[in-house]
């Protein structure tokens, strides 16, 4: 019964979505409001229908109804409630439905919240967002239906189909396959939805860009309407990347968190163009420049979002992340070509109207540095794109697959990121239009001196690695320069209003959330960069075979192997081998760790899950993996130990990044008051050149 409800509601959702697109465009053709109202209502209906379908699937998962192929593939009887809920996006078909649900929610929210302010855009916003939604819904209805069921015919053949084929009867499996043990990690459970939120969020600015091109209203109105959307999308994308890194670090057991794998890169690519976009729209808002560039950037971001989804699910690039091969590759490629084609054609028609309103006054201006920032992000995007898809291109050109490994990405992207941090430190010091040399030198002095001091301290403390010293110096400069901005702001408020420094600092955030929230994001990124430099340049590792009671020594740490415990888990689902080790630093016991191996016996065959055990401090992680052991006795157990300096800074930097973004997107009552007043007097949308 629930499966039927699911099939009916997902089909109705698709029909409502198609109707919404047609009605929205028809309202432009007919110049009639009521069609647009009807389109808006259809958007709401479509989303409600998807919600119903999703709930039906959720209940099927919780009830463990193994007559459904999807339930069979993603859960088993042993799974607890949380695992059954997360199975909703644990497989291809369910994740497409879940993706559609988020897309529908975002589209509905964007339409409702901009309904009065940007009515002219609405037909096109609905067409783009709901067109995208309709496409993904059609994939779930026609290609990857989560409500496909098992049927058996008289000769005993098992058929998988959503609707009952003639002359068959339903078949329920006794138990499911269960979720892949590798994916049973809290980070992995929220990582996919977070990435989807980021991906879907980026569709909204793209839709408004298309609307601006279609209507010919090329003022920064489309940017203002979607600035918050872009930031929220960026937040989720960043969070998705960080959670993915954390999962890799905790679960995959190779001591690292980022391997420049195609699946990782395909999430990084839209993040790079999205970050560039967040910066470049500021120039259009302030100076009326880069109008063409912003359009190109958001179109490419949209392209990369869909391309990322396509390439990870169609199997065109091989990856350590195994995705089931699926028939949706062809339709996705066609959809991508059509939607980007339409956007480029609209852009072509408006190209001459997108002329810049201002020229660059000076190289020493904030806008000039923002332009360089964008060129660097473009360079990073191209380099990462090339590295990711090189196997395909090289096979086409030379017949041989060339795979780019981490050294390529590190040597190309490393320096580009370095220059970006230099800009991150410099740009806030510069004024719009032009900056006098004297002002620049004065502003530069303190951060430069502090950064040099930092390098000297690091040098004295024993680090001689030139790349690391340069990296810490540049990143430190960006950090000090950002801190100086807070300091200057607080001092100015103290002088002009007599506010205590701390209160002045708080008021900075209140008065200009975007700017000072943005600086907090910069600080978060700076801290993440310290963690990345430290852990990638100074990682140490050793692999040794120890008998019980023996110990190994690595850079000031001593690890004593106490013993090995093994046996079946109480629920019989896995065989657990766990080592007991003690970690001493300078003769003091600092941690007792339990690296382990879980061997899941059924029904995955025998799948191994290596769980590292970690002792974390501010200075770094002591990360130990159980490599192999002897079946009998405690003789000869092999351990691999990594020392990952500063790795914890990545996660803490991530937390600061999230707080900064939340401050930046928090609705500002003053701003919305001004906006509605301007709207009333008909001034909204007039270009605002500072």
């Amino acid at each position, binding site marked *: 019964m629930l499966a039927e409800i699911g099939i009916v509601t997902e089909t109705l959702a698709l029909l409502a979505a198609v109707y919404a697109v047609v009605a929205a465009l028809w309202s432009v053709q007919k110049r009639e409001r009521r069609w647009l109202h009807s389109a808006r209502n259809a958007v709401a209906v479509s989303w409600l229908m998807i919600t119903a379908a999703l709930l039906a699937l959720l209940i099927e998962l919780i009830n463990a109804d193994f007559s459904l192929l999807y339930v069979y593939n993603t859960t088993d009887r042993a799974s607890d409630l949380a695992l059954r809920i997360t199975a909703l996006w644990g497989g291809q078909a369910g994740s497409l439905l879940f993706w559609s649900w988020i897309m529908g929610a975002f589209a509905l929210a964007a339409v409702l919240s901009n309904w009065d302010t940007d009515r002219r855009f609405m037909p096109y916003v609905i067409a783009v967002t709901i067109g995208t939604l309709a496409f993904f819904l059609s994939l779930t209805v026609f290609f990857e239906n989560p409500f496909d069921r098992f049927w058996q015919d008289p000769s005993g053949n098992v058929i998988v189909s959503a609707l009952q084929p003639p002359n068959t009867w339903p078949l329920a499996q006794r138990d499911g*396959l269960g979720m892949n043990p590798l994916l049973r990690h809290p980070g992995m459970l929220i990582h996919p939805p977070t990435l989807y939120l980021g991906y879907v969020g980026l569709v909204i600015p793209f839709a408004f860009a298309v609307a601006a091109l279609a209507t010919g209203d090329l003022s920064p109105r489309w940017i203002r309407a979607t600035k918050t959307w872009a930031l929220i999308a960026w937040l989720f994308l960043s969070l998705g990347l960080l959670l993915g890194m954390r999962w890799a670090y905790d679960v995959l057991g190779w001591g690292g968190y980022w391997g420049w794998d195609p699946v990782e890169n395909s999430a990084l690519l839209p993040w790079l163009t999205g970050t560039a976009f967040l910066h470049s729209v500021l120039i259009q808002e302030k100076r009326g420049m880069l109008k063409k560039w912003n359009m190109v950037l958001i179109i490419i971001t949209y392209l990369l979002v869909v391309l990322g989804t396509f390439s990870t699910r169609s*199997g065109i690039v091989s990856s350590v992340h195994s995705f089931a*091969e699926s028939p949706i590759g062809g339709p996705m*490629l066609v959809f991508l070509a059509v939607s980007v084609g339409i956007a*480029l054609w609209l*852009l072509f028609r408006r190209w*001459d109207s997108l002329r810049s309103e201002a020229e660059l006054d000076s190289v020493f201006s904030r806008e000039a540095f923002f332009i360089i920032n964008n060129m660097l992000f473009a360079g990073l995007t191209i380099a990462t794109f090339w590295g990711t898809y090189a196997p395909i291109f090289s096979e086409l050109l030379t017949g041989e697959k060339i795979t780019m490994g981490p050294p390529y990405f590190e040597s190309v992207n490393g320096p580009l990121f370095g220059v970006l941090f230099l800009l991150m430190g410099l740009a806030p010091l510069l004024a719009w239009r032009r900056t006098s040399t004297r002002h620049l030198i004065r502003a530069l002095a303190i951060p430069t001196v502090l950064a040099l001091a930092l390098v000297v301290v690091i040098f004295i403390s024993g680090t001689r690695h030139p790349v690391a010293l340069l990296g810490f110096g540049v990143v430190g400069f960006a950090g000090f320069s950002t801190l100086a901005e807070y300091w200057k702001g607080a001092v100015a408020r103290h002088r002009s209003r007599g506010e205590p420094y701390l209160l002045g600092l708080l008021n900075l955030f209140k008065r200009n959330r975007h700017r000072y929230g943005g600086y907090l994001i910069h600080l978060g990124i700076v801290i993440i960069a310290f963690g990345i430099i430290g852990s990638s340049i100074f990682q140490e590792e050793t692999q040794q075979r120890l008998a019980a009671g023996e110990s190994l020594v690595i850079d000031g740490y001593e690890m004593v192997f106490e013993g090995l415990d093994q046996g079946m888990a109480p629920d019989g689902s896995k065989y657990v081998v766990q080592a007991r080790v003690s970690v001493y630093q300078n003769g003091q016991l600092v941690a007792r760790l339990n690296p382990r191996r879980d061997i899941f016996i059924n*029904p*995955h065959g025998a799948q191994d899950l290596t769980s590292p055990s970690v002792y974390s401090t501010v200075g770094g992680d002591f990360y130990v993996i159980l490599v192999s052991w002897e079946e009998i006795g405690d003789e000869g157990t092999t351990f691999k130990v990594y020392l990952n300096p500063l790795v914890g800074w990545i996660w803490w930097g991530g937390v600061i990044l999230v707080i900064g973004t939340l401050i930046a997107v928090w609705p500002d009552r003053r701003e919305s008051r001004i906006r509605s007043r301007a709207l009333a007097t008909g001034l909204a949308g007039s270009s605002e050149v500072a």
Partner: protein
Amino acid sequence: MSEEPAKKSRIPIGLVLLAVLIVAVLAVMAWRLSIVSQGRPTSGPAPDFSMTVFDDIEGMEYAGETITLSQFRGQIVILNFWASWCDPCRDEAEALENIWRLYRDQGLIVIGVDHAADGGPAAREYMLEFGISYPNGLDMGSKIGDLYHITGVPETFVIDRDGNIVEVFVRPFRESEMLDILERLGVE
């Protein structure tokens, strides 16, 4: 990004270049997709091939002989593409050896094809580690791989007694899945 005042109806070269680039990228993706998704046989007669089985592994069936797929007509064939550097293949190797030992007397044969970029001592060590006794050979020049349009390892093809492909795994298979399929093909 240069935005000097435009003359009337000037063709925006930058935009055209971008469009050409995007079209090229999408075309390459489409080409790749056609190889990935349509090239691999998923049903119908399995392409025939010959392969020389390794002769330096003790206890391996057909060691040193040249075998052809068609000589196993009437038996169920599990054709597994692997390489010693492929981690998921390792789990499969154990499962395949078990399945082969359990069902060989019911007319089942497992054939292992070592990826062209492998072979040598690493492959030998791999086969010894898992005590592999079903026939394995090196895919010289990737001829067999091309025949089956594989895009990586592991890939596994299940062929029924009439020589038709009935199942393809473009990923590591689960032992229970394989047992289900074999059950359907009449192996208990």
